[in-house]
């Protein structure tokens, strides 16, 4: 279809919104050239196919015009708008073939086969999996090259038989989410320069996210104050001042400061949002969170469990209760956040973005919780869905029905009855009985033999030496015959003795024959014209293998000829039976159509 070169009228667009420059697209050899109708136009193009990494196209039937989008290795793309879909398809196939030939990484990109079944659009994720598989398995790649690029099988057909492989690969891709660190945020230690009284806290978006998650009130305050009421710097200064007050455990001082500064008070008071949520939270632990152990877990050798907190100076006057925060509070809140998992999947860049993303996810959650009426039900469902942690699951198998043999006696009785019945009826059995000597005579004869031995005694000698020698020779001959050893000893296979090129050839042929036969047999019974065409294609391909096998046989050195011919014979047999079936089916078909014709004539 796309043999030497392709030339089509197209509009070349540098971007999707670009109206496009009309001109001629010419693809030949390994180059793509675009020549605009207007020779003064700047948008000339002449690139090597090697720089083209992939291609996409609009689907027929969608409302879009026929576009072909070639992505190059710099991340840019060339978009061509064709006059019709058939034009575009021709070019696309051409591009596909060229890319397939030019580089392995792009191997699976020409995923568009010659004959497209209408539902053959595959998503990029699947494509990536395929590419990965091909790259990892050179055998598979060879096979793919030969069969798919060679046009014998379509891409979809090729992969249809490897669903398991793809599934497994897919399965590996879904990973667990990373949770929060188990180090507590109260552990953020200030850095002092030692001379002045200033302390410096260094905050990363990571820490900020954790602070927001653990302290919704701080989050709330950040959203409402920054940057309208105060700068981010001021905000965090206040926050750490509050933290400092907490850490001194001086509830009285904290109360005093809070009275002066209402913003500071927010940080010092108990978190209302927290209290409100607390109970619901308990039931919403996501079982799939990967609670990764890190340095924060390694606290046993540190005083106070390494947590930057001092429980010793507790004051317990009730009026200051509001400003008192216990270690238990902190730990529980931290644990809750860790268990909840990280629901924000943003690039941790600015504080603002972090705050907003967290707010969004909170809103979404809140929205979910509105339907709290059937929350229990949902939760159970979610639990059962989420607790499927893939690395703890057995592979998905087909459902099984246990074997039940109802009553073994029943079975044996029926077998017995059957056997007796058959023995009575079997013509073969009766014939044998008649041919045999009367059983009475037979028993008599046997008894006679025994008494003869009893009276005469053992023969002397037991065996004639001539016979013994003959037996020895026969046994030795049998054992030393190599014929039985070939292929019988598992340690060394016959293949290993062959030259490596021949071995590879044979293995490759065997793999491709197997692949072809698999497709061949799976297309029977032929019910659609699509299958019919497929079988024809496969038959063509298989018939081409015969001469190749003969060639291998000829090319091997004489001392390996026998082994190779044994191997090749098996391949021949497998192919022969396929051809036989094909011919038989063909005959049946023609007979049927003849009948139909006859029927119509009558």
């Amino acid at each position, binding site marked *: 279809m796309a043999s030497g070169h392709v030339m089509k009228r197209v509009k070349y667009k540098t971007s999707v919104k670009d109206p496009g420059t009309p001109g001629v697209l010419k693809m030949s050899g390994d180059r793509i050239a675009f020549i605009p109708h207007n020779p003064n136009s700047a948008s000339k193009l002449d690139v090597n196919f090697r720089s083209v990494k992939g291609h996409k196209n609009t689907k027929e039937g969608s409302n879009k015009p026929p576009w072909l989008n070639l992505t190059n290795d710099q991340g840019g793309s060339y978009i061509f708008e064709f006059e019709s879909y058939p034009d575009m398809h021709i070019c696309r196939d051409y591009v596909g073939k060229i890319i397939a030939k030019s580089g392995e990484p792009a191997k699976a990109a020409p995923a568009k086969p010659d004959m497209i079944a209408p539902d053959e659009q595959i998503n990029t994720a699947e494509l990536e999996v395929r590419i990965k598989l091909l790259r990892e398995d050179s055998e598979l790649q060879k096979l793919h090259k030969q069969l798919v690029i060679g046009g014998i099988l379509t891409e979809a057909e090729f992969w249809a038989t490897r669903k398991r492989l793809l599934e497994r690969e897919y399965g590996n891709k879904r990973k667990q989410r990373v949770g929060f660190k188990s180090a507590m945020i109260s552990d953020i230690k200030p850095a002092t320069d030692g001379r002045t009284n200033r302390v410096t806290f260094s905050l990363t978006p990571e820490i900020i996210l954790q602070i927001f998650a653990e302290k919704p009130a701080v989050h709330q305050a950040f959203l409402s104050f920054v940057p309208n009421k105060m700068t981010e710097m001021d905000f965090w200064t206040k926050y750490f001042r509050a933290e400092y007050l907490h850490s001194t455990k001086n509830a009285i001082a904290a109360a005093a400061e809070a009275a002066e500064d209402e913003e500071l008070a927010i940080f010092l008071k108990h978190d209302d949002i927290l209290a409100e949520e607390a109970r619901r939270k308990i039931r919403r632990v996501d079982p799939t969170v990967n609670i990764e152990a890190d340095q924060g877990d390694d606290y046993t050798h540190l005083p106070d469990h390494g947590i930057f907190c001092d429980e010793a100076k507790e004051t317990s006057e009730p009026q200051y209760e509001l400003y008192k925060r216990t270690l238990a509070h902190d730990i529980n809140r931290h644990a809750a956040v860790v268990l909840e998992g990280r629901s924000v999947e943003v690039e941790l860049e600015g504080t603002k973005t972090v705050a907003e993303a967290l707010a969004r996810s909170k809103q979404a959650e809140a929205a979910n919780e509105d339907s709290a009426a059937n929350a229990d039900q949902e939760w159970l469902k979610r639990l059962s869905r989420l607790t499927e942690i893939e690395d703890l699951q057995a592979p998905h198998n087909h459902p099984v*029905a246990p*074997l*039940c*043999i*109802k009553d073994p006696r029943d*079975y044996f009785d*029926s*077998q017995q009855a*059957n*056997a*007796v019945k*058959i*023995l009575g009826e079997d013509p*073969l*059995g*009766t014939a*044998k*009985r008649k041919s*045999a*000597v009367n*059983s*009475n*005579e*037979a*028993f008599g*004869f*046997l*008894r006679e*033999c*025994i*008494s*003869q*031995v*009893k009276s*005469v*005694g*053992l*023969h002397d000698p*037991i*065996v*004639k030496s001539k*016979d*013994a020698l*003959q*037996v*020895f020779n*026969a*046994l030795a001959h*049998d*054992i030393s015959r190599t014929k*039985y050893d070939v292929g*019988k000893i598992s340690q060394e296979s016959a293949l290993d003795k062959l030259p490596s090129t021949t071995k590879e050839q044979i293995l490759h042929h065997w793999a491709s024959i197997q692949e072809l036969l698999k497709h061949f047999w799976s297309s029977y*019974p032929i019910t659609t014209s699509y299958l019919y065409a497929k079988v024809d294609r496969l038959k063509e391909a298989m018939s081409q293998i015969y001469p190749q096998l003969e060639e291998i046989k000829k090319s091997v050195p004489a001392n390996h000829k026998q082994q190779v011919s044994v191997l090749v014979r098996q391949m021949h047999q497998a192919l022969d039976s396929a051809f036989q079936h094909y011919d038989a089916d063909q005959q049946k078909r023609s007979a049927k159509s003849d009948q139909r014709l006859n029927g119509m004539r009558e």
Partner: protein
Amino acid sequence: MAPAPSKLYADDVSLLLVLLDTNPLFWSNCALPFSKFISHVLAFLNAFLRLHQLNQVVVIATGYNSCDYIYDSSSATSGSSGTGKMPVFCSKLLENLEEFVIRDEQLEKGGPGGGIASSLLSGALSMALCYIQRVFRSGPLHPHPRILCLHGSQDGPEQYVAIMNSIFSAQHSMVPIDSCYVGAQNSAFLQQASYITGGVYLKPQLLDGLFQYLSTVYATDLYSRGALQLPKSVGVDFRASCFCHKRTIDMGYICSVCLSIFCKHHKKCSTCGSVFGQQAQSDVASSSNKRKMSDS
């Protein structure tokens, strides 16, 4: 004779269970007369017992209507030194054999009469395995057991399931089943038995040299076998018997649930009761036909 610390006496002490085919219908047609056959066997057993002081032989007669133990070297009294014609154990064995044949014949008269000329291999195998299990369980030490089938009658397909069960149980208890087949055609049952249990199957070409075959191939203990090149079977007949009519078949139907074998399509599996689908009768026939491999 210091006992080894393992359950075995020593690696070269054997317990040999000989299954002797005494099917009169076979022996009346066989090229090798039974008298010759039995003298070869007796000589072999004598030689075997002399190989090691602790070697033990148990002979089980595989009859036409029944099976029985006819000799056990462990219970034999070694009193008199024989008649001069033959060792005392031989005359004892022959005596028992004669009695067994008479009993077998009486059963024949009382029985339904007729049948094909196969002997009760499954019964004899079961008895041998039972004996071996008893040996395993009794006493702190036991010899290394193996079974030797000296068989000539053709396979009785009706015994297929029972024989296969015995074979698998022998395989499970690691007892090799050796077989020496003196009949005309190869025996698929014995081939499979030896193949599965790791024993030696042999069909002697020259029946006059039977003793030589027996002593060359079957006399050595299992430990020494590891160092010997013994005859290997070229091909094993893996054909099965159908469960419904007990015919030996190449192609048949397999119950997808319990793997029972049938020669015809059934609506329902007689073993497990699974109901087979009815759709597309002809397609089912062509696709579910299973071809048994014959490795030759």
